C-alpha cells in the first residue's frame, strides 16, 4: 500500500514538472508553446469529461455543447461587452455551467446509451443556434474581430496576447485549480459516492444515496470545468466557430479519455497529448489524419482496454 502511494505521488510530481517546464522542453523537441497550451486545454476538457465518465460511470456524448458555450461566452464577452480576459473566462465558465445545471434535470434519469443520445441532441441544438444566428455568433465563419486582452492586476500588466509563454502559464494555473478541485472531490466522501454509483448503482441506491441527485452534481461539476476549458480554448485561438459545439468534438473528448485511460486520473491528459500531437503532425502530412487517429484508437481499445496509461502501469508493475 505505502509503496503504491509513493509511486502515485512520484507520478503526479513528474506530470507537474513536465507541465511546468513545457515552454522550455517542448520547443527543444520540435514543438511550440501554443501546441503545449492546446494539450493542456484539451487535456482539461478530457479530464473533466472523465470526472463523469471514469469516476461516475456516465457517458456523455455532448460535452462539446458546454465546451462551446464556454468558448462563445468568453469570445462574446470580449467582442461585445468588456475587453477583459478574466471576465471573459468567468462568463464563459458560468454560461456552460448554468446551461448544464438547467439541462441536467431533464437527462439524469436516463442511463447508458439513452443518456449519451440525449446529450448529443442537446449539443446539436446549441450547434445549430451558433451556426444560424449569424448576426451575433458570426455563423459558419465563426466569431472574429476580438483577441484576448492583457491581464491587468492594477500594479502590473501581463501581455498574454503576444507572449505565448505567459498565456501558457495562465492556462496552466487555471488547469491546476480545476484539476486540483476534481482530485480533491474524488478523495472526499462525496467522490466515493460517485465511485459507488459507477461500481453498482443498485447497491448505491440501497445504501441511501439518491443516485439521480449525485449524478446531477457530478454532471454540473464536469460541465463546469469543460466550460472553463472551452473559454480557454477560445482565448488560445482568438477565435470560436460552431465546430467547438459540434458532436464530433464531443467524440474527440471521449476518444482522448478512453485512449489515455479513463480509469486513471491523468490518463485523459495523456490521451489529449497523443491526440493533439498526432493531429498536429499527421494533418500536415495527409488530409485523412483522422483515419490514423481512429486506427490507433481502435487498436488501443481492442488490446489495451485501460488505455495507454494502463499499458505503462502494467509495465511498471511487472
Amino acid at each position, binding site marked *: 500500500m505505502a509503496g503504491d502511494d509513493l509511486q502515485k505521488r512520484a507520478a503526479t510530481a513528474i506530470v507537474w514538472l513536465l507541465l511546468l517546464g513545457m515552454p522550455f522542453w517542448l520547443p527543444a523537441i520540435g514543438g511550440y508553446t501554443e501546441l503545449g497550451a492546446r494539450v493542456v486545454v484539451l487535456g482539461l476538457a478530457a479530464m473533466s469529461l472523465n470526472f463523469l465518465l471514469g469516476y461516475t460511470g456516465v457517458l456523455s456524448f455532448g460535452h462539446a455543447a458546454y465546451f462551446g458555450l464556454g468558448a462563445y461566452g468568453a469570445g462574446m464577452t470580449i467582442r461585445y461587452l468588456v475587453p477583459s480576459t478574466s471576465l471573459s473566462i468567468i462568463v464563459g465558465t458560468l454560461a456552460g455551467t448554468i446551461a448544464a445545471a438547467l439541462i441536467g434535470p431533464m437527462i439524469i434519469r436516463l442511463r447508458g446509451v439513452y443518456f449519451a443520445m440525449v446529450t448529443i441532441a442537446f449539443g446539436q441544438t446549441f450547434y445549430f443556434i451558433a451556426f444560424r444566428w449569424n448576426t451575433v455568433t458570426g455563423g459558419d465563419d465563426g466569431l472574429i474581430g476580438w483577441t484576448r486582452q492583457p491581464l491587468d492586476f492594477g500594479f502590473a500588466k501581463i501581455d498574454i496576447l503576444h507572449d505565448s509563454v505567459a498565456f501558457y502559464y495562465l492556462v496552466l494555473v487555471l488547469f491546476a485549480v480545476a484539476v486540483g478541485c476534481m482530485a480533491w472531490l474524488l478523495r*472526499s466522501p462525496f467522490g466515493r459516492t460517485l465511485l459507488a454509483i459507477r461500481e453498482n448503482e443498485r*447497491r448505491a441506491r440501497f445504501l441511501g444515496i439518491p443516485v439521480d441527485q449525485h449524478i446531477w452534481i457530478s454532471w454540473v461539476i464536469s460541465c463546469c470545468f469543460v466550460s472553463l476549458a472551452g473559454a480557454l480554448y477560445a482565448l488560445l485561438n482568438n477565435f470560436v466557430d460552431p465546430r467547438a459545439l459540434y458532436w464530433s468534438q464531443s467524440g474527440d473528448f471521449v476518444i482522448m479519455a478512453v485512449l489515455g485511460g479513463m480509469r486513471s486520473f491523468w490518463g485523459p491528459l495523456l490521451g489529449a497529448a497523443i491526440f493533439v500531437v498526432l493531429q498536429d503532425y499527421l494533418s500536415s502530412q495527409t488530409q485523412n489524419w483522422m483515419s490514423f487517429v481512429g486506427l490507433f484508437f481502435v487498436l488501443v481499445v481492442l488490446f489495451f482496454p485501460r488505455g495507454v496509461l494502463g499499458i505503462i502501469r502494467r509495465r511498471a508493475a511487472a
Partner: protein
Amino acid sequence: MSLLRVENVSKHFGSLVAVNNISMVVEPGELRAVIGPNGAGKTTFFNLISGFFPPTSGRIVFNGEDITALKPARRVWRGMARTFQITEVFPELPVRENLRIAVEVAAGNRLNPWLSRDADGEVRARIVELMDMGGLADKADRLVGELAHGDQRATEIMMALALNPRLLLLDEPTAGMGDQETYDITQLIRKLHREEKLAIVLIEHDMRVVFHLADRIMVLAEGEPLAEGTPREIGANEAVQAAYLGKAAA
C-alpha cells in the same frame, strides 16, 4: 408500536399477479422468515417493502409512518436496509472502501467534500468494528470481487448493517453457498439478531436455516399468504406440508 406493518399489498405486472393481497406485521427485534416455493412472490414482496417498485395497491407503514410512496434511499434514511439474492457490492473496491462508503453515507456525509480528522477517525473505527463482526478483518484490503462467495455476502450484510438499520431485509442470504459458508452466515445473522437486537426479515430456501433462526415464519404460495406462525406451528401445518415442505421432503 409495530416496526413494520404491510397492509394488503398487491403487485401486478401486466396481467400477471405476482403478489396478491399480502399483509404482515413485524415487531421490533423480531426475526421473521418468509418461505415458499419458487415463483411464490417472495422477492417481489421484498422489493415492495424496500421500495424497489411501488405496489399496485395496499399500504406499507414503517415505524408509524406511511412509506408506500417513498423511494429506496428515503426508506434507508428511515432505518431500512437490505441485501440481494445476487450479492450487490462494489466489486472493484476493497472491503474497507465498500464499508467506508456505507459508513460515511450513514453518518450523513454523502455530500461532504471534506471530512474532519475526528469524523474520519470515527469512520475508521466503525469500519474496523464492522469488519471484526463480519469476520473480514484479514481481508480488509482485498477487492471484494476477488473474495469467496461467503465473504462477499458477509461484506454485503456488513454494508447494510453499517447503515444502522432498525430493520434488516435479507434476500436468500445463504443462496449458492456450501455447508461451512451457510453455517458461518447463519451464525452471523443469529448474532445480529441476538446481540444487536436487530429486527430481521429474511427469505430463505434452506429449511435448516429457517427453523434454526426464525421467531415466526410466513409461507407464501403463488403470490398469496398460505400460513403464518412459529416454526413449530408451520412444521405441523398440513397445508404447508402439502404445498411446500412435503415436496421438499419427498
